């Protein structure tokens, strides 16, 4: 078994808590992303799993083994760093053979393994190159090959794509995901890029200020954010200040200004009259003629090719709406009176 369990994991640097009591179960074979803004403690968490940072409190289990106090070399992990950390004094082949030599494999076995690893990462013919003769993407592949030949139980990646240009990042994103799927290796992926997390992960843990805000599938995180932070961090969201009125038919009734509308049911009890935030994604808002929904006024129209983005004033507040730019849909001009609506199930009420 190679699942990972973090139990009440804490890391403090003096007064500052970089990681605050994280508990998490990463399943065997899962691609799990830790997503969050800079400084939220993603790397610290990953480095605790790797064994480079000793937790201040809590436990780490890989499979059924407690590894909390084991040094990194005894944990049977593979880690790829942001800068790839290719040994500059060794050729590509020697880099890949490094872990195998430490494991006292025979020369013949090492040669066979290195050759097949080079084939796997598409670097046949690169054996004798050195780090300074490799592009970022190639170094990335060498780093992965070097790790994978040692057959680690878990794979840890710390922002492995952030040093690459956009086109290569896209390519590597799918390549890494595909490789991970083929190998079925439990993977923890640290990133601050939501697109990476959403496209690659089986599950995502969103972190903020050392805490796990929400753990769930990409759909959960995107469609059903549980906290205001997740809502605003993932994609763009309209956040409307509302007052909770009560419940109706399993939905929540909220009001703002002169408007009263329904939204997805709140979990738990909320006293009527309490302030809350109504969250709607721009692509879920439908614009129609006046009378079709809540009255609103177009402030600006922003043409973006496949999309047209509108800024509208709705009551006292502003919202952003995105529409697919198809030939059969009409466009709206600034100043025009329109009506807006959305599926209550596609809107979220978060109690502030």
């Amino acid at each position, binding site marked *: 078994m190679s699942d990972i369990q973090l139990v009440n994991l804490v890391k403090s640097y003096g007064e500052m808590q970089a990681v605050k009591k994280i508990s998490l179960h990463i399943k065997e074979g899962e691609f799990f992303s830790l997503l969050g803004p800079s400084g939220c403690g993603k790397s610290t968490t990953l480095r605790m799993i*790797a*064994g480079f940072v000793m937790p201040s409190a809590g436990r780490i289990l890989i499979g059924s083994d407690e590894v909390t106090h084991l040094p*990194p*070399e005894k944990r049977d992990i593979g880690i790829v760093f942001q800068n790839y950390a290719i040994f500059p*004094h060794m050729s590509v082949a020697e880099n890949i053979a*490094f*872990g195998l030599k430490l494991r006292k494999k025979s020369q013949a076995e090492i040669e066979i393994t290195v050759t097949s690893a080079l084939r796997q990462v598409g670097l046949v013919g690169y054996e004798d190159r050195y780090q300074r003769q490799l592009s970022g993407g190639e170094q990335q592949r060498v780093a992965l090959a070097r*790790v994978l030949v040692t057959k680690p139980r878990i794979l840890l990646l710390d922002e492995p794509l952030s040093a690459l240009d956009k086109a290569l990042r896209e390519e590597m994103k799918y390549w890494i995901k595909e490789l991970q799927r083929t190998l079925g290796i439990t993977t923890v992926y640290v990133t601050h890029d939501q697109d990476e997390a959403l496209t690659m992960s089986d599950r995502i843990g969103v972190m903020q200020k050392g805490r796990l805000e929400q753990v769930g599938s990409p759909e959960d995180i995107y469609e059903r954010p549980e906290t205001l932070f997740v809502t605003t961090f993932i994609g763009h969201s309209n956040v409307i200040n509302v007052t909770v009125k009560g419940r109706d038919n399993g939905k929540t009734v909220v009001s703002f200004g002169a408007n009263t509308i329904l939204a997805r049911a709140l979990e738990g009890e909320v006293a009527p009259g309490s302030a809350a935030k109504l969250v709607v994604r721009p692509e879920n808002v439908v614009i129609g003629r006046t009378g079709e929904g809540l009255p609103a006024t177009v402030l600006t129209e922003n043409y973006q090719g496949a999309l047209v983005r509108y800024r509208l004033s709705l009551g006292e507040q502003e919202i952003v709406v995105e529409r697919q730019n198809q030939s059969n849909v009409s466009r709206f001009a600034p100043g025009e009176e329109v009506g807006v609506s959305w599926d209550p199930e596609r809107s979220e009420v978060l109690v502030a």
Partner: protein
Amino acid sequence: MRGESAIPFAFRVISWLTLAILLIPVVIVILAGLNSGDYLTFPPQGLSLRWVVAFLTSETFLPAFGTSLLIALITTLISTIIGTMAALVLSRARGRIVNALRVLFILPIVLPGIVVGLALYVFYISTDVGLARTMAGLIIGHVIVTCPFVIATVTAVLVGFDRSLEEAARSLGASPFTAFRLVTLKVISSSISAGAIFAFIISFGQFEVTLFLSGPNLQTLPITMYTALRYSFEPTAAAAGIFAIFLVVAATVTTSRITDLKRIFGR
């Protein structure tokens, strides 16, 4: 702009000129050592191997050359090991004490050799540790003088050393010591050899500190040359200089063959 080089033409002229000026003393010493006249003069009165032979058969110069070589080798070995270890500690540990230590370790570079020599001399004779006028005492002096150069060169590279290389090695199964041996040490090896060359050259030519610590039976080449020139102005000293120059050049070339010095100086 012509060729691949982006260095302005004027700069290149200046650097060649500088190099030429720096090489003048070397040329003078070599020519003076090959002088056929009786006195140390320049330009030489004619060329001959007379004084080279005199050096090779000398009862003072040749042993002094050997002593200097031996002291330089031992000093280099000790300074390189101590200096590398000190550089590792100084570049990795944090805190106020370490900052103070950093200054302290580099201090002998800026301290006049006379002061170091005098201090050691007074210390040796007044404490009766049995180091006065001994080779051990002299080597200690040379280590104090040369060690900071090793520390400085090795620290310069360690500051830019990427710790994730060590971490990568650890994650691949290496113990802390193995990771250090197979990765860190290899990556910083050229700076260690550069430091070793500095230590060797400085120790071999060391004069002021040696002046205080040498004795009648402990004469290094610089001291012997100095003494000889004070009493008789004969070209044997220059001939000895030729050998000193060749030794230093040979040491540098060998070391740079072993490790890639270009990586240190060429970057």
